[in-house]
């Protein structure tokens, strides 16, 4: 359905946003008296220099892929899911609860964790979907409220039922059998955080792409996103699709929460909204809401997050420069409407002609001087 021009345009816009984000990071480094080239060198080296670091980059990217897919999926139906952070927390809570409660062989336990977190996230997100469909409550506001409800639910539930042995502020460590980490993968990547979550992520990138491009469901969801009234007139049940879209978005984020709390990490901290929920918005924007675009953008952000610690160790640059780059990318992605609107004009600029004209002008100016 997507034409080649459209893909090319998306690519250029993401490219501009990344470029401006990196530029903002460079300015911040330079203003604070650091060498940006050195900073970027260590930032990228930190994410790529050996097999363990590459594993960590992929492990960091895993929840981001899910968070990005979640935002992108809702976007397709014209909904803005800011609730990724809360849905991740609920998915993570379901996964942790299952992992700490049941004593079962690893394959069965992991299957339960995957489905538990999917369902938890889906239910959590379908409430804003219902409120939108039934009462026309704006999903941006309701998902923000749901984020903070989830934040406080975790804050009180975890210490009450799953308190760790040492600290009030974290849950017990999940047992080996409940972790998405598996020995062969950890060894293959030299002890990195990488876990089965990355395969789940790839599977769900493919599934999302298939649902959106090849099924009636995907067609209906997108039709609602393009033009709600036209979809209604064509006999599509708009309200049902809104709830469904939010539920799927929540399921993706919930599973992302599982890959973070029982994959990357081994316990849950209270009092933290996972930043991946918001980074997911940047991932979706940068990936132009396409599943494989999301995958690529998430790996890029995973690289920045993995490299920032190494950069901080090798230079005096605080690691938050990576977060600044991501935040700036979101800012410029928000303003990309401007580029989009003038795209036809930008495309028409014939750079060769421009150069020639420049030469002619300078010749003219030269000859004018002689007269």
């Amino acid at each position: 359905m997507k034409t080649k021009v459209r893909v090319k345009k998306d690519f250029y816009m993401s490219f501009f946003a990344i470029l401006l984000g990196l530029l903002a990071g460079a300015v911040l480094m330079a203003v604070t008296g650091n060498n940006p080239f050195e900073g970027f060198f260590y930032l990228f080296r930190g994410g790529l220099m050996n097999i363990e670091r590459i594993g960590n980059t992929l492990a960091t990217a895993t929840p981001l892929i899910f968070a990005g897919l979640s935002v992108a999926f809702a976007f397709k139906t014209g909904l803005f899911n800011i609730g990724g952070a809360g849905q991740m927390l609920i998915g993570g809570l379901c996964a942790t609860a299952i992992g700490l409660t049941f004593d079962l062989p690893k394959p069965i336990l992991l299957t339960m964790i995957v489905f538990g977190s999917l369902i938890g996230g889906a239910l959590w997100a379908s409430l804003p979907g219902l409120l939108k469909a039934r009462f026309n409550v704006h999903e941006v506001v309701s998902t923000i409220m749901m984020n903070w409800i989830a934040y406080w639910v975790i804050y009180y539930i975890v210490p009450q039922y799953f308190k760790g042995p040492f600290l009030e502020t974290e849950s017990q460590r999940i047992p080996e059998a409940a972790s998405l980490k598996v020995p062969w993968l950890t060894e293959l990547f030299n002890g990195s955080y990488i876990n089965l979550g990355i395969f789940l992520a790839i599977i769900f990138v493919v599934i999302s792409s298939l649902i959106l491009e090849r099924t009636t469901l995907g067609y209906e969801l997108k039709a609602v996103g393009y033009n709600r009234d036209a979809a209604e007139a064509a006999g599509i049940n708009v309200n049902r699709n809104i709830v469904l879209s939010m539920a799927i978005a929540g399921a993706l984020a919930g599973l992302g929460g599982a890959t973070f709390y029982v994959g990357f990490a081994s316990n849950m901290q209270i009092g933290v909204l996972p930043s991946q929920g918001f980074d997911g918005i940047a991932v979706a924007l940068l990936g132009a809401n396409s599943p494989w675009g999301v995958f690529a953008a998430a790996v890029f952000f995973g690289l920045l997050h993995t490299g920032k610690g190494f950069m901080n160790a090798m230079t005096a640059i605080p690691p938050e420069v990576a977060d600044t780059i991501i935040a700036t990318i979101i800012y410029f992605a928000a303003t990309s409407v401007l580029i989009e609107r003038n795209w036809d004009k930008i495309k028409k600029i014939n750079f060769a002609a421009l150069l020639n004209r420049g030469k002619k002008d300078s010749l003219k100016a030269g000859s004018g001087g002689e007269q």
Partner: protein
Amino acid sequence: MVDLIYQLFPYAIAFTIPLLLTSLGGLFSERSGVINIGLEGLMLMGMFVGAFTISQTEAANPGTAVWIGLLSAAVFGAIFALLHAFACVTLNANQVISGIAINMIASAVTVYLARFLTGSGNVQIIRGLSRQTIPLLSDIPVLGRLFFTQSYATTWLVLFILAAATFLLYKTKFGLRLRACGEHPHAADSAGVNVYLMRYMAVIISGACAGLGGAIFIVTLSGEFNGTAAGLGFLALAALIFGQWKPWGILAATFFFGFASTIANVSQVIPTLAQIPGIYLKTFPYVVTLIALVLSSKSSQAPKAIGEPYDKGKR
């Protein structure tokens, strides 16, 4: 029970005030038609600038450092809000995404600068604002004890700002124009109002209010910047919606939220309150906001043109 209320009241008010001011800031922005999800980030910027300024100047001039800090927090909040205004008004950007970007930029840049300038992600101040008992008024029975003992000067400043903001929005030409930009910008434009300018001013005011609100939280309650506004900005946003985009509604909403949060914060220390599970008290503001949104879905008081970039050419 009565003693308990007397005990809690000063804390509840201290918690309400930064929320109230930030929410009022949001009121200006949203009434002019610009959604401001960036309140959390604007508050955080105020917290950082306030804490940093005070920590650097309090040794030299202990008496005025707090006020210099508050002033600079408001100024930097306003400057930082320009970024949101530029995206939303000049570039016609998506206001929600821009607001999220503001939050993320604030939490990254403030911690970056804190580490660079002080060597640590936390900035502590030694002396905050002290509580004062107002001589004559505190002798009034009941009310005197509730409102005029152990109050902060900032409380009175913010209540004054509330009154001034109400007057400005509802009794002046400026306020009428600002509200018109949020209801029907094209009509305002054809009546000779510069919609772009009004929206810029509204967003800048919201930045100053949120920045000051964040710094007030530092000097009255927390005493340190630690890289997060802990959802206060979102609580202010909830209060703005629960208060139905009206100054007095916002006052009532922020006071409710402030009281609920205070009870939740101290409930473990005070036996009478320990029976109420904290989870209900802490989620209360968000749940009632959702309920309020459902109840008001038929007759929402939200500004009509909220979230729409103003495009002169479109009719």
